[in-house]
């Protein structure tokens, strides 16, 4: 499926389009299908997202898993500082990232 990601303009936080707004959790991401460009243009112009783009992802039992390793690291946080990651207490990176 196609999901949207970008950064919050003021804070720089990585965000994911959840259908209504921008969430910090990749698992809230929704399939935008052919609407990607239209949504990004509108949200960028309204300053609700910065530098947004579309990526491929798959829905799994645990949630949403971006298809490319770079996007998975972007969703998770640096693999070498798991204390900064999405869920610092419970992350098993080898399975999810690699």
């Amino acid at each position: 499926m196609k999901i949207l990601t970008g950064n919050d303009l003021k804070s720089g936080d990585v965000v994911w389009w959840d259908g209504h707004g921008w969430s910090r959790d990749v698992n809230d991401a929704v399939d935008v299908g052919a609407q990607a460009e239209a949504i990004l243009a509108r949200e960028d112009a309204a300053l609700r997202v910065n530098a947004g783009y579309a990526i491929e992802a798959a829905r799994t039992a645990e949630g949403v898993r971006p298809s490319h390793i770079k996007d998975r690291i972007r969703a998770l946080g640096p693999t070498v500082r798991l204390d900064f990651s999405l869920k610092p207490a419970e992350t098993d990176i080898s399975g999810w990232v690699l």
Partner: protein
Amino acid sequence: MYQYDHYDQAMVDARVEEFRGQVARRLSGELTEDQFKPLRLKNGLYLQLHAYMLRVAIPYGTLSSRQMRMLGDIADKYDRGYGHFTTRQNLQYNWIKLEQTPDILADLATVEMHAIQTSGNCIRNISSDQYAGAAADELVDPRPYAELLRQWSSFHPEFDYLPRKFKFAVIASDTDRAAMRLHDIGIQIVANKAGEIGAKFHVGGGMGRTPMIAPVIRDFVPALQMISYAEACLRVYNRYGRRDNKYKARIKILVHEIGADEYRRQVEEEFAHILPLGLEPPAAELARIKSFFADPGFETGLPETIDRSDPDFALWLDQNTVAHKQPGYAVVTISLKPAGGIPGDASADQMRLMADLAHDLSLDELRVTHTQNIVLPHVKKADLYPLWQKLDAAGLGTANLDLISDIIACPGLDYCSLANARSIPLAQKISARFADMDRQRDLGELKVKISGCINACGHHHAGHIGILGVDRKGTENYQLSFGGSEAADTSLAQITGPGFSEDGVIDALEKATEIYLAQRGDGERFLDTYRRIGMAPFKEAIYG
């Protein structure tokens, strides 16, 4: 070290206000991201994989304890309690908020620091020798010349939109400790036969996609014509550097494509036009700057002998300190490569500790090296043991300078949106594989450099062992290469063959060290053995 006068301070303060206005215009939507991006890059602000990243300039790698302390405080106040020292002697913060950036720059300005031109298509931080002012083999301290170039290049109105980034390095010894020949312009301060001081210009070096060693463009430019000559070099580049292809836009491509002789001809023509225009700062200005780099009040009659009875201290002493030009002193390298650690990272507490140690024990000065370590340049031999004890207690006492675990690694795919593969975990695993310090010392000088993409911020082309991370169909893969050198015997590493998985490249690297141990001659480093026996024996062992 250099201290701002009111002119310098006013310029930095003006830049903060300019950027504050630009941020406000971005937040209001008056500027689009495409319009804002070049402006924020010229203030060192990137949008990276996880957040905004701010690259703070540390001019020619020199800073005071007050400045280092501020870097630690900023890490706590605005970031997540740590920073990353880079291969261009700068510092990076990884978790910056755009709306706070003007305040961060204002805080930096209170201690004569900034993030000016640390990114963007302009002249970047000017790097230098981390042992400047302390090394016995330097002709003069290169840093006054670097400071002169820094001021000349700051907010230079003609060179603010170059084809691409532009990096200078300035050294003043035949021993090249700054990878000078791998810069866009590398300058060695030299003396001519009449004993006059001047600048030897190398132009067109660099790493990245197409690594090149800079040819000499001019053997001798008199010191008081150096700025005019640099102006000529930059003007030819600004006019004729390629702008059609981002990957062919560096000056090394121009020099390579038109040839060094033609580039030199054009520079000389421009220089002949520029010299009479009176752009050169006067001798009094160079003298004024030099006065800040006079010897910092060394004591005399100090004890030379050092008590080596603590074996761990003795190992650190032998590995991490070198002779100082002044009797009774030593030059200390603080390793930011602890076993299994993240190369070049320091916590805010570690930064403040290093600041205190520099204040108390190194005449208030520190250096950042391009290999991501910190130098205390002026430590009394009598203070080395108590210094080491404090460093060791803080995890800063690893005795691995230039050993296999003293790895250069770029931030890689863990942090960088340009990367294809992670470099830090690889560095950590190599460090763990070779954790035995006796084994490391037996291997001796072995410079491992890891880049997570072709941009080569990890300087892998200049590694005795260089590793490049690539993306192979969505999986991280690593190319191994041998025989690079950043020193005066500059060479570019040669690739071994097909790439490896992360574990595979560590095994291959280990096999290479075994070949070295089996084949080495007397006094040969890994690099020397490789240069003597060639790639074939290594390739055979690795690929079978």
